[in-house]
């Protein structure tokens, strides 16, 4: 958003709650790498299946995209028409055909590696601009299992360069993605659109903690935002268009905290749906140990091998409404939350030591990532607890329905079959590996049933635009960052084209 607006000649100010993060800050260590993860102000999480928040959060320039693993997939056509097709969930206010040009433009600008020959699932699309990244020892071992069961696979499409692009280097497959990629192979904002924004004249203010969006007295125009600076002083910056991209939990929190006499229940909340429909991706992990050397410390944190053979949400086929994809052969170092140590949390003492010494050389992992259904009761509300400035923290409640639980069970069963078919001598599972956060300010065509329109403009305050996965009406079963980019590009092009009416 900032890059395209600045390139269009608009004066752009980006307020970032956290510290400056450059690629020089991305040290190859999963201890030091925690500096680009999480937040010092964690929201409160609850419910039958609480959302995992801090792994997804960030507190610095580039936000969570600075540490994302760059698994870039497109939503399928039926993800946009879920309610119409399957009778549950919601529909988007546009179709895949509408969004496709933006996906295509983004992948050309950023660089996405993939294999058009073996990717049989992605809807019609421009060819991948970069050749696929290689399948290494771990991926080859896992592929044996998929092949034995007749399940097709493809190299994982990733916004990770397989060949140099400008000043950005190609990936050297060393598995440090989770600590941040300082060489520019992985498309973190520092080397893509944030860089473009700065080159085009945008200003980034760090340590600027936004608390409220401010409106005129009538409440029909946003006039600026309130924030607190590093010294704790209240500041205000005014603007003609306010774009709120504070992540899926904080966006609704800021809107709810922006209540005024014109918007007594929170800004842009005439529908009562600000905070509603919080979603995650239900996950399940399958692990195996092999006699051969698999070198799991190599590769990409997001994995090498991918399959959407079980993506369809057809209840008649599955016995549940929902679909999932496989993200196989993820690179793992010994420590950290996604490290090898957490793959057997029950072990300690000498058994843990023995496991780490073995698994660091012989482990294979495979992850099922499935969709969540939008449920109004899964939502962000304001807590009784407050931040240092006196504003209520977010309270997030989330649970899965029976469909998703059934799907996870089915995926874990099939994943074990794949691992055994690959020749593992020891197979086990981790039933809870949920990831990503979406919803909370969903887009839709009906102002009574959504927070924004199809361009992210809030129904109540048209010059207030919501960015990021907040606006997703459905989660789909794919990592969200590519779609966030595409939807944002569609939004910003509309804002620029209709600037005279919106600003």
């Amino acid at each position, binding site marked *: 958003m900032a890059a395209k607006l600045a390139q269009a000649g608009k004066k752009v100010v980006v307020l970032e709650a956290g510290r400056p993060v450059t690629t020089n800050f991305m040290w190859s260590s*999963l201890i030091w790498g925690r500096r680009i993860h999480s937040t010092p102000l964690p929201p409160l999480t609850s419910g039958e299946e609480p959302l995992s928040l801090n792994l997804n959060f960030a507190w610095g320039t580039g936000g969570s995209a600075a540490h994302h693993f760059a698994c870039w997939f497109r939503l399928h056509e039926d993800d946009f028409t879920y309610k119409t097709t399957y009778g549950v969930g919601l529909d988007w206010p546009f179709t895949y055909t509408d969004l496709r040009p933006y996906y295509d433009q983004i992948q050309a600008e950023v660089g996405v590696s993939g294999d058009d020959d073996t990717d049989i699932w992605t809807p019609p699309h421009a060819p991948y601009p970069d050749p696929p990244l290689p399948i290494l020892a771990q991926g080859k071992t896992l592929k044996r299992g998929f092949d034995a069961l007749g399940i097709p696979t493809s190299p994982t499409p990733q916004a990770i360069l397989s060949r140099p692009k400008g000043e950005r280097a190609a990936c050297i497959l060393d598995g440090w993605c989770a600590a941040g990629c300082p060489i520019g192979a992985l498309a973190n904002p520092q080397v893509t659109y944030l860089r473009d924004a700065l080159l085009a004249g945008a200003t980034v203010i760090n340590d600027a903690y936004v608390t409220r969006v401010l409106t005129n007295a009538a409440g029909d125009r946003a006039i600026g935002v309130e924030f607190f600076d590093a010294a704790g002083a209240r500041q205000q910056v005014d603007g003609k268009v306010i774009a709120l991209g504070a992540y899926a939990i904080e966006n609704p929190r800021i809107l709810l905290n922006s209540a005024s006499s014109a918007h007594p229940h929170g800004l842009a909340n005439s529908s009562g749906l600000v905070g509603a429909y919080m979603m995650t991706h239900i996950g399940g992990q399958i692990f195996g140990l092999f006699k051969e050397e698999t070198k799991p410390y190599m590769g990409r944190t997001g994995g090498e091998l991918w399959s959407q053979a079980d993506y369809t949400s057809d209840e008649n086929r599955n016995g549940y409404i929902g679909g999932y994809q496989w993200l196989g052969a993820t690179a793992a170092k010994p420590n950290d939350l996604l490290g090898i140590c957490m793959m057997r949390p029950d072990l300690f003492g000498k058994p843990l030591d023995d496991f780490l010494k073995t698994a660091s050389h012989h482990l294979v992992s495979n992850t099922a990532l499935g969709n969540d259904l939008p449920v109004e009761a899964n939502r962000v509300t304001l807590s009784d607890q407050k931040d240092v400035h006196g504003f209520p923290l977010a309270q997030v409640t989330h649970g899965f329905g029976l469909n998703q639980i059934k799907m996870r069970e089915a995926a874990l069963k099939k994943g074990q079959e794949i691992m055994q078919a690959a020749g593992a001598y020891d197979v086990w599972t981790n039933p809870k590996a949920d990831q990503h956060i979406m919803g909370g300010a969903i887009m839709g065509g009906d102002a009574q049933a959504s927070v924004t329109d199809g361009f992210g403009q809030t129904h109540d305050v048209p010059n207030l635009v919501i960015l990021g996965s907040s606006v997703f009406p459905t989660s789909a079963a794919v990592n969200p960052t590519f779609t966030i980019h595409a939807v944002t590009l569609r939004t910003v092009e509309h804002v620029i084209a209709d600037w005279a009416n919106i600003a």
Partner: protein
Amino acid sequence: MILTAEQSALLEAVGEVLLPGARDAGIANFVDVQLGRDDPMLMVRYFDWPGNLTDFYTRGLAALDKASKADNGAPFARAAPEQQTALMRKFLDDKVPGWDGPPAPLFYLAVRGDVVDVVYGTVEGFKRLDIPYMPHILPKEQW
């Protein structure tokens, strides 16, 4: 120093039970240094713990010692190895009798994560596992 000498000694004893080598690798120093930072690089930050991190560790250590005295009739550091192991097995299932610290599974996973950090999460740790470190940017300090 954030932790007292007694708390550091207890943390080392717990660390040794969780992963042999934790004491020599510097578990007490690691946690103490991190708790003194504005931005502690401890794995517990991923666990959505809403409270103060120093309290998390000090309350957890106190509760552990109390549980050991109740279970084994001795502080954790002076309990027999098999008693220490038996007590530790109760954490993940949240079955520690009389536990009054932060959630027991969370405390176990956090400290367990810390000991893996210091024993195997560094350049020297990778050597001990015989895996290549391959840094883009080598950390200036191990933590």
